[in-house]
């Protein structure tokens, strides 16, 4: 009886699925009038889901503000904004499909790129093919932009702008540091950052005594940490995402590893990193592309940095980090470019983006010839007293470097 019950369900599900597909196809083009649709392929489920939530918060905040103000002004006519999300399940090949689907089936006008450097690069081949202007909120690796593409722009500066200032500060203020150990997640962005770090450490006369990668999804790091401990480096530099860095920091404490300097990218910029680690997060240094302590007076819809932070806190009851801010910035930049072009023609908007030279709540925005932003000074910061404290750039400095991570 039970087997036939399953078979019946399966048989029933086929026509139902077809029906659902047909309904989706009819619902699609109905809302094309006076709306600018921007497609956002995101890893809404799977291991990168926490990052997708942050991206969504940034995009939604911008769309809400833009629509509250009546919409985007295109040559005197107001257009509402609609963001079309698709889930690519943290699976890069699916990000490419999702992007194509947004263009050909959802008929979006413009695109936000998939999350991170790897997926953004993969999906950019599709957006380039269809000539759809795309803004990448979270792609920093130069390899994303050196493909000679015309329609891809990104709001993160190259990876070395994070590691070089950090290395300079450590070299100037902690003369004891001689040996550096680098442990990197074997993934496009974390690995690229680690390689930049290795380069900048060597350029500044440090000895890199350990450089290893750990696989995506590694549960336990005790063996790698034991090996690092045996080398007794003064600076331990680890890259990865929040879950990796939480686990590694916890295991460092477990193994009683101490060092004058411990740096981690990209977890410490997130509040949940500090909340989850408590005291063990103290004095960990990091760098990010943006920090809520910055003070810019922008020409975009958010205006000042302080206003952006205020709006964000009102909507989400938490402090924004660089991921959310960059997503909101991408929306604001589309708005600026569309208004400047006075049209929603893809080529005109693309040209307007390429020629942008404007101050925003995120900082000055100007894209290089390859499409990557080249006008920002990313801040270096350290967790002190459970809060991120900015050490660099000078203009927004909040405190001095503290040495010693236990």
């Amino acid at each position, binding site marked *: 009886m039970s087997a036939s019950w399953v078979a019946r369900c399966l048989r029933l599900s086929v026509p139902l699925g077809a029906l659902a597909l047909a309904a989706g196809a009819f619902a699609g083009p109905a809302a094309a009038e006076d709306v600018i649709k921007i497609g956002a392929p995101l890893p809404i489920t799977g291991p990168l889901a926490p990052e997708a939530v942050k991206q969504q918060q940034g995009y939604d905040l911008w769309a809400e503000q833009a629509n509250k103000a009546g919409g985007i002004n295109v040559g005197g006519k107001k257009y509402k904004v609609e963001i079309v999300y698709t889930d690519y399940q943290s699976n890069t090949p699916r990000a490419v499909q999702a992007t194509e689907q947004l263009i050909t089936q959802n008929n979006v006008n413009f695109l936000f790129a998939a999350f991170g450097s790897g997926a953004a690069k993969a999906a950019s081949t599709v957006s380039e093919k269809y000539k759809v202007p795309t803004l990448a909120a979270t792609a920093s690796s130069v390899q994303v932009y050196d493909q000679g593409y015309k329609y891809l722009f990104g709001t993160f500066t190259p990876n070395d702008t994070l590691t070089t200032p950090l290395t300079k500060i450590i070299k100037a203020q902690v003369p004891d540091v001689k040996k550096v150990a680098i442990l990197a997640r074997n993934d496009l962005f974390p690995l690229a950052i680690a390689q930049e770090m290795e380069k900048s450490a060597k350029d500044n006369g440090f000895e890199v005594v350990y450089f290893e990668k750990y696989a995506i999804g590694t549960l336990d790091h005790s063996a*790698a940490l*034991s090996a690092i401990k045996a080398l007794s480096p003064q600076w331990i530099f680890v890259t990865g995402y929040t879950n990796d860095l939480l686990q590694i920091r916890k*295991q460092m404490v477990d193994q009683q590893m101490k060092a004058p300097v411990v740096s981690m990218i990209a977890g410490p910029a997130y509040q*949940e990193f500090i909340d*989850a680690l408590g005291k063990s997060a103290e004095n960990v240094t990091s760098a990010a592309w943006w920090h809520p302590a910055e003070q810019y007076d922008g020409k975009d819809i958010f205006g000042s940095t302080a206003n952006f932070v205020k709006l964000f806190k009102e909507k989400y009851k938490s402090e924004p980090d660089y991921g959310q801010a960059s997503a909101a910035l991408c929306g604001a930049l589309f708005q600026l470019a569309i208004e400047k072009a006075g049209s929603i023609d893809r080529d005109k908007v693309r040209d307007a983006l390429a020629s942008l030279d404007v101050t925003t709540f995120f900082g000055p925005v100007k894209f290089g010839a390859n499409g990557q932003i080249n006008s920002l000074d990313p801040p270096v910061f350290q967790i002190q007293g459970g809060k991120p404290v900015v050490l660099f750039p000078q203009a927004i400095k909040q405190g001095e470097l503290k040495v010693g991570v236990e």
Partner: protein
Amino acid sequence: MQAMQILINALVLGSLYACIAIGFSLVWGVLNVINLIHGSFIVLGAYLAFGLYQSLHLSPWYAIFVAAPLFFALGYVIQRLILNRVITAPVLVTLTLTFGLDLILNNAMIYFFTADYRKLTLSPPLGSVSIAGAVVPVDRLIATATALLLTGLLYLLLRRSRIGRAIVAVRLDRDAAVLMGVHVPSIYAVAFGLGAALAGCAGVLMALIFPISPLTSSAYLGKAFVVCVLGGLGSVSGALAGGLLLALVESVGSTYLGPSHATTLSFLLLIIFLILRPQGLVGRKGFE
């Protein structure tokens, strides 16, 4: 000295892997069901420990006593109401069913708990101790001891109790067990309940050691799978042997070849075992 540290790391990690895998192995061995919800049960157990510690300040050592009966009941009900309906169908049907249940449970956890990573941090922290020149975190040590204790209890239950003998009987020969008067559906439900209870307890212990998020469930499931293949299905000692072997290979590999090759090595080992010794380290050939 570093060799000692590697060995101790591996022993501790191996016991934790065994603890993750044992419920999975029991269900696979007895019911011939590849239980894909296992990883999500572990995560749910971890959230239970986290929640009890945050709200009632109940230490995870006591949370185990809450988790075990709760998860047993959950597993028993799922088996009785859902899985027993398709238990005689080909393995693909039960696989698909547990896959679907896993999707539901995992996404429900993402919905209710969000995908943010959380950490159960004991205050004051337990710190670490030195054993023969190697540093071992106390929380891992206690988790290891508890894992071994749970494994021992399961062993005793299967060996000494009436219900345990019935489970083993069903595992060895279902038809003969029926003829001896064993009520197979309830034995299935008890075995699945035990599997769930072990997963829940493993989750409570893992909460102390790993970050908690619904997204980690697939990592736990993957480890359980490898441990079962290495150790052999359905036996307590198999899970322990498989866990220790996996941890040892990972630790040694990651020290001498770099951590990025630890996973490669463990899967290489898996393939070698599948080809040369498909019954696992302590499994018996032709046991199916």
